[in-house]
Every structure is written in structure tokens, then in C-alpha cells.
């Protein structure tokens, strides 16, 4: 115990003296939180739109205005022929083109079917899909009104009443703040552990440790215990700033969240330990961390919904601790999930943790001698 505490104490002093790293560990979560929270909004609005109106009537102008009124599209101007439309899209001046056919108003008035065309720039699928959805909704609504007008019905025969739970305003921040806890913890825990051991190797102090009577588990635990504390500090920081700046509450039990986070932090420390047995220098440790962080960002469900991913990618993401932690933290923080709701995720996280601990301690032992 004396030896374990000696290591942990030394690690804390070194951390305290290393001002840039310390600052990074506090600033990184806050910067990321502000960036992701404010700048990133997956709900795309105000897409620049141009109109090619062959009809030029009050009705056709009204249709363009209605599209703008949905908030998804901003009409930035009008074009006069198809060539001009394709130029506008190619140059990026407009991402959406609304094409209203000739005799639009006349056909509508006589009850003839009319097709309005929407040309979208598919090079950024996410942004244009919101334009398609908005325009589709608008036209469907119009069509229904026309049909109902002729049938003289007062109410639509079938309607949908969508109720959104947990995040009724569909704010992105609500999804992103808990996710950031996972990303930041992954990044700092893995990097700190990998670098702390690579640093001892680089400076030759590891040899001095190995000749001392310290046991391997004492060395490993003593080194990573301070990082567990840092992990919890970061988590608290993100949740607090998320609450104050973005009004993202923790609905469920905070105690349960903190308890379950331990398994996730431990899994990341084990990964860091594993990297440290491969990296000879701190720089390599850093590169490995970034290599590891990328699939975590992309596959875990932090940025993109996992439901849309192909099967192999989904399976791959199951082995990332972050994937399971995201479900746990979003469950607890946003939906008020309890222990029983999360049992499945916990089980998987526990399996991953066990495998990682065994793997990294085996490698660590081999590597020291």
C-alpha cells in the first residue's frame, strides 16, 4: 500500500507541475462543449434556394413563399432557365432549386394533376434532406387541402400526432452534451495513461521502478488512480457546463451515472495501458490515441446515429466501450433510465472491460522484463 500510494502521490505532483497538460484537461472539455453545443446543429435550416418559375402567377409566387416559411429554405433569388439553375447549383450559390412548371395556377384551378420539381445538391446529403422533407410536407399538405376541398370534408380522415419525449424541442445539445462526456473521457483517459508510462520509458525511470520491489499491480494501480479522479472531474465539469450553458439536465440518478462511469473509465485506462506497452515514446502514444479516437467518434453513435450504419460497422462499434457508455449515459441523463433498464449494456461493458484488463496486463508483464 505504501508503494502504491508513493506512485499515486508522485503522479499527482507531476501532473500539478505540468501546467500545459493540466490546462488542456480542463480546457479541452469546455472548448469541445462550446463548439459542439453551439456550432454544431444537425437540424439544418436556411438552405440557400433558388426558384425557376415558368408560371409567374400569384399562386406560383405563393408556393415559393410557403417553402421559405417552413424555415428550411431561404429563397435567395430567381433564375430564368434551366442552364442558369444548373450554374447556380454548380457554383454552390444555391443548394436547392424549386422548379414550378408553366400553367401551374391554371392546372390547379381546373383540378389537373401538377408536378412541382425540387432539384437538390446531393453532395451534402444531410443538409438537403431537410429541404426535401420540408418541401415534401408542404406539397402533401397542399394536395390534401385540395382533395378535401373537393370532397368538402372538415377534418382529414387520417392524421398523425407525433409526440416527442425527453427532448421535445429536438435540440442537438441535449444529444451532444452527454455524448461529449464519453468522448472526452475516452480521449484523456487513454492518452494520459499511455503517455504516463511511455514517459517513464523515454526518460529511463521505468528501469528504476522495475528494480524496486514494487509489484506490477501496485505500479499500474498507483499510476492510473489519479487519472480516475481526473476523469470524474472532467465528467462533472461537462455535466455542469452543459446544464448551465445548454440547459441539459440529468433526469435520472446522478449516483448511478457516477457509479457506472467507473467501468467505462477503467476500460479506457486499460486501453491506454495496452497502448503504452506498444509505444516507445510519448509521441507514438499520442498518435495511437488519435488513431483510436476516430472510430470512436464515427461509430459509437456520438456523431451519427448507429441505426443508419451497415451491419459490419454496427458490429464493429459494439466492441468500443464508448458505444455502450453512450447508451448508458444518454439513458440515465436524458430518459431517467434505472439500473434495470441498462443491465444489457452494463453486461457488455463488463465483458469488454475484462478482456481489456487481461490483455493489457498480459502485455504489460511481458513488456517490462
Amino acid at each position: 500500500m505504501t508503494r502504491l500510494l508513493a506512485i499515486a502521490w508522485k503522479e499527482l505532483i507531476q501532473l500539478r507541475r505540468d501546467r500545459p497538460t493540466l490546462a488542456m484537461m480542463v480546457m479541452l472539455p469546455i472548448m469541445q462543449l462550446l463548439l459542439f453545443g453551439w456550432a454544431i446543429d444537425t437540424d439544418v435550416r436556411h438552405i440557400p434556394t433558388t426558384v425557376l418559375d415558368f408560371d409567374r402567377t400569384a399562386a406560383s409566387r405563393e408556393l415559393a413563399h410557403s417553402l421559405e416559411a417552413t424555415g428550411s429554405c431561404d429563397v435567395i433569388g430567381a433564375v430564368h432557365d434551366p442552364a442558369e439553375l444548373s450554374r447556380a447549383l454548380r457554383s454552390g450559390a444555391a443548394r436547392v432549386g424549386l422548379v414550378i412548371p408553366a400553367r401551374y395556377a391554371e392546372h390547379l384551378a381546373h383540378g389537373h394533376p401538377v408536378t412541382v420539381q425540387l432539384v437538390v445538391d446531393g453532395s451534402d446529403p444531410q443538409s438537403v434532406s431537410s429541404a426535401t422533407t420540408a418541401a415534401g410536407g408542404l406539397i402533401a399538405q397542399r394536395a390534401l387541402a385540395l382533395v378535401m376541398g373537393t370532397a368538402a370534408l372538415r377534418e382529414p380522415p387520417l392524421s398523425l400526432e407525433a409526440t416527442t419525449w425527453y427532448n421535445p424541442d429536438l435540440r442537438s445539445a441535449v444529444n451532444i452534451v452527454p455524448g461529449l462526456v464519453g468522448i472526452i473521457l475516452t480521449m484523456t483517459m487513454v492518452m494520459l495513461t499511455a503517455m504516463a508510462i511511455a514517459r517513464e520509458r523515454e526518460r529511463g525511470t521505468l528501469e528504476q521502478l522495475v528494480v524496486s520491489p514494487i509489484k506490477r499491480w501496485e505500479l499500474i494501480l498507483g499510476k492510473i488512480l489519479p487519472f480516475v479522479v481526473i476523469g470524474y472531474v472532467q465528467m462533472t465539469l461537462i455535466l455542469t457546463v452543459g446544464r448551465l450553458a445548454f440547459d441539459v439536465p440529468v433526469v435520472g440518478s446522478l449516483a448511478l451515472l457516477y457509479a457506472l462511469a467507473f467501468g467505462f473509465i477503467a476500460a479506457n485506462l486499460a486501453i491506454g495501458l495496452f497502448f503504452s506497452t506498444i509505444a516507445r515514446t510519448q509521441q507514438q502514444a499520442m498518435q495511437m490515441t488519435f488513431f483510436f479516437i476516430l472510430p470512436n467518434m464515427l461509430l459509437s453513435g456520438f456523431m451519427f446515429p448507429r441505426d443508419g450504419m451497415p451491419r459490419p460497422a454496427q458490429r464493429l462499434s459494439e466492441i468500443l466501450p464508448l458505444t455502450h457508455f453512450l447508451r448508458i449515459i444518454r439513458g440515465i441523463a436524458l430518459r431517467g433510465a434505472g439500473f434495470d433498464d441498462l443491465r444489457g449494456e452494463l453486461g457488455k461493458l463488463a465483458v469488454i472491460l475484462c478482456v481489456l484488463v487481461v490483455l493489457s496486463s498480459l502485455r504489460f508483464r511481458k513488456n517490462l522484463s
Partner: protein
Amino acid sequence: MDADPDLVVQTEHLGRRFGKLEAVRDVSFSVRRGEIFGILGPNGAGKSTTIRMLCGLLVPTSGRGTVAGFDIAREPELVKTRIGYMTQRFSLYEDLTVQENLHFYAGLYGLSGRRRRDRVGTVLERNGLTGRAAQLSGTLSGGWKQRVALACAMLHEPPLVFLDEPTAGVDPVSRRTFWDEIHRLASDGTTVIVTTHYMDEAERCHRLAFVFRGALLDLGTPAEILQRRGLRVAETVAESRAMLEVLRADPRVEEVAPFGARLRVTTRAAHDPAAVIREAQARSGAPHADVTEVRADLEDAFVSMVRDDARTA
């Protein structure tokens, strides 16, 4: 193996292979309590491998050894509690102060509470470090770092301390001071095993082991080793290329080495190196210069041993 309590280190036919490479072979020696035992040899000779085996870091692939009464293969963890170890690069944490380093290493060796404070205080005082206790280790000069490193290795009062090239990159005055400290430790009963490249340091050891290509070439006190080699050395100031050629071709000559303006000629004891030089002067037509016989030193012995080994190999 006898259980002579005075033999702090005992090895019998110790060997270590790394795959096909035989890094150390058939090394047998023993070290008495309070002895300063030097291990000499060029880089890659097997010095570090030998020391790593003795520290319990590396399991020998053949032979056996005991350190401080414990078997190095079976009880490496017990060996570790009984030894101090100072690496070549004085592995201090540069971002910790002198005192923090000492506290850390004391904790590493299981000292806690009052005993830790007492030992740190004693060691600081004994090594004249009290005034520098609060200084960051990274800002110390080489000589001071080395003192702190030695202090760290001695915190838990080990009966045996390993010093792996402890004076590499340290100025001559600090080296002297350091060796005074080593002698003081030894006279207090601590056994010191030290590796070095410096022959003046080798002369300050009680006994020496010459290691080359993984094998023990010779073992004994500096005087014994010199006597066994039976070398004689003479020096002259003349520097003529023709004379150098003549000397190099002479079968009686073990070695010819220029040292600045001097030429150092080594022969076996059966020959008189001064006479050999005069002959060479005459034969090459070089001007007559003063020739003086000087004492052979360990470096001469070492070079000649390595040459012999290369010839037989």
C-alpha cells in the same frame, strides 16, 4: 553453494542467451561484504546483462547465483528489496524536487511515516543536500544529480548497491567526490558493484572483473591483474612514421599507441620495452630521443587482454 554470510554475491557458471546470441557465458565470481567490485568491459560486453541478472530483472538461462542470500532466479522479488540500484542516466524525476524524489523512492521501498521522514532527513544531510532539498531535480548539475541518485539508491539501507556507469558525463571533480563517497559506503560495510569505462576509477576498486564478449577474461585486484598480464611499458617523445612501422612489425611489441607527442610501447615482461624502442630508433634512422620506462596501467592490461582474446577467437 556455501552459505558464507560474508559473500554478498556468488555466481556459478552464470549465462544468458537471447535467442542465438550468447550475451553472457560461464561467469563465476563472488563479492565479499564491504568490497568495491568493479566490472570492466567495452560496450556490449555483457556488463549490463550480468548486472540485470544479479538485480533479479533477467532470469539466467544457465548457471546460478545468489545475491544477499537470495537466489536470483527463484527469489528475484526478495533480491530487489535488498539492493540499491543506480542507472546510467540517474533516473530522477526531473519535475520533482530533490526531497520529493527521495520521499518517492523511500515509499517505493516500503518506508512509511516517521521512518521515511527520518531516513530522508538523514540522507539529505549526509550527502550535503539539505540546502537543495526544495530544488527541482531537473535544474541540478550532473554531479548533483548523481549525488541525489545515489542518495535515492541508499534510502532503504541496502547491504549491496549496484552502480551502472555512475560517472558517465560527470566532471572530474564530481567524480572524485563521488568515489570518496563510494569508499565511505564500503568502509561502513556496504558492498558496491560498479561498472565503468574509466581506468582511473577501475584502479580505485578493491577487485575487478574484466568482461569481454560475454565472458570473464580476468578477475582479481588491480595489482594481481597487472602482475598476471606481466606487461612493461616505455614511452618516448619521438614521432617518426618509419619508426612506428618498425615497432608495429616487431613481434615482441604488444601495442604501440601515440598519446599526443608521446609514443607508448607495451611489451611482455620478458622484453625490455626501452631497448625495443632504441632498436627501432636505430633501424628506422629516427633521431635519438629520451626513452623512459613507465608503470603499466589497467588500460594496457585491458587492451592486451582483448587483443589476446581476439587472436585466439
